C-alpha cells in the first residue's frame, strides 16, 4: 500500500506504524458523567467496519507525523490522507 503523505508525497506503508481506529483521537474527559463507560468504549470497543475506515498511521521511518487515513478495509484502497493534527476536534 502507498500512503500519499500530505507533506512528503506517496510513501510505502511499511514506513508507518498502524495505530487503529481514529476514535483514539477523541479521548473522553475523565470528569464527565459515565466516564468509566466512556473509557471502556474508548479503550476497548471498536466498530471494525468492512468498508471505509478512518484510522491512525504514525510515520515512524519518516517525519514522525500522525496521519488520519481513510481506507477501505475490503479493497485496501486509500481514499484520503490528512495530518491528524489538522483534524483533531473536528
Amino acid at each position: 500500500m502507498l500512503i500519499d503523505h500530505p507533506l512528503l508525497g506517496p510513501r510505502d506503508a511499511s514506513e508507518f506504524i498502524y495505530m487503529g481506529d481514529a476514535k483514539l483521537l477523541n479521548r473522553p474527559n475523565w470528569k464527565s458523567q459515565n466516564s468509566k463507560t466512556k473509557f471502556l468504549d474508548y479503550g476497548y470497543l471498536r466498530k471494525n467496519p468492512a468498508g471505509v475506515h478512518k484510522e491512525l498511521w504514525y510515520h515512524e521511518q519518516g517525519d514522525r507525523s500522525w496521519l488520519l487515513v481513510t481506507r477501505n478495509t475490503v479493497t485496501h484502497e486509500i481514499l484520503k490522507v490528512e495530518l491528524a493534527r489538522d483534524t483533531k476536534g473536528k
Partner: protein
Amino acid sequence: MKYSGFKVLWEGLKGNTGWKPLWRKPDPKKNYDIIIVGGGGHGLATAYYLAEKFKITNIAVVEKGWLGSGNIGRNTTIIRSNYLLPQNQPFYEFSLKLWENLEQELNYNSMVSQRGVLNIFHSDSQRDAFVRRGNAMLMSGADASLLGVDALKKLVPFLDFQNSRFPIKGGLWQPRGGTVRHDAVAWGYAKEADSRGVDIIENCEVTNFLIKNGRCYGVETTKGVIKSKKVGVCVAGSSSQVMGKIGINLPIESHVLQAFVSEGLKPVIPGVITFGAGHFYVSQSNKGGLVFGGDIDGYNSYAQRGNLPVIEDVCEGGVALMPMIGRARLLRTWGGIMDMSMDGSPIIDKTKIRNLYFNGGWCYGGFKATPASGFCYAHLLATDKPHNDAKDFLFNRFERGRLIDEKGQGNQPNLH
C-alpha cells in the same frame, strides 16, 4: 457412514462406488432449540458436542458460504498447549487432550500427528522465560522439556546454530504438539453432528437477529426466518459484522494473516519449529510442502489477502533460522481474517441480549482451540454457565481490568 480399514479395502475392490456424502443438505426448519451462526471448525464442534455431550440435537448450523470455507481451511494446522497464563493454559491443554482422541471419537481420519512443537530460544534471558513457560505447562498437566544445543543438533541439524545475531541456545519442546489435517476437522465434526440430527445449512447468510424485549428468539437469513430458543454466534473474522447488525461493538479488530506453502520437498522438518528472535513458524505437510507463517499484516482488513512487506519479513525470519529454506520455492500464499481481540485472548460468553451468545476473538490461535472452544461453547449454550476451563473468557474482563494478555501488549490488537 462408518469408516474402517475393511471398508477402504472393500471400496477399493468395488471401484470406490459406495462412498456417500458425509452430511445432508437440509432446508431449514421453522424452529430449533439452538441455532449456531457460522459453520466453521468452532461452530461445527459446538454442534457436535451439544449433540454428543449435552444431548441437544434440535440444532441448526447456518453458514454463509460452504462448510468450512473460512479460517478452518486457511490456517497452518498447528496444535499445541504451550501457553503461560493460568486463564489460558488449562484451556489449551483441555483442547490438546480432545485432539488426541478426536479421530476415534469422530471415526474420521483427521491425520492428528503429534510430531512435536519446538520453540527456539536465542539468549539466556529468553531461556529463563521459556523455563517459566515450560513450568506453567507442566503445572497444567501438559508435557514440556528443555532441550540444549546438543539435543537440537540431533533433532534439527539444519538450523543456523552459529547465526551471529541470533545464536541458538536451545529450545522448549512439547512432544504432544503437532499438526492436523485442518479441513478434515470440519468434515469430521460435520459428519458426526449431522448423524446425530443436526441440520447444517450452507449458503445461508444471517441478515439480522430477531429480538423482542431484550431477548433473541431467532435469526433472519437469506433462506427465510428461523426461530430458536437460543442463538450462538461463532463467526471469527466476521464477528464485528454479525454483532454490528444489532449495534454491539466488540473488543475486536479484524486483521489479515498470511500463510505460505513451498513446493513439495522430501521429508526434512520433523515437527513444528518456531523462531525465537522474530515471528516465524514452520512445519512440513504430508505432501511435502513447507507450511509457514509469521506476523499479521497489522492493519484492519477483510480482504483475505495481504501485502508484500510481510511476506518479505516472514521469509527473512525463515532464512535466519534455517538458511536452507532459501532454496525452496514459494508455491502459494493466502490470507485469512483474524478476529484480533484487545488482549490477545478469546471470548466465550453471553451477550447483553438474552439467549444470544458469542464466541470469538481467537486472534490467530483459533485452530488449535477448535475442540475445546466447541466443547466449552456447547457447555455455555446448554447450561448457561461457563465451562471451568473457559471461565475467564468473558466480556467483562475489559471493564474489570482483568485482561488475559499473554504478551503484555495492552489494547493494541496488531501486537498480540
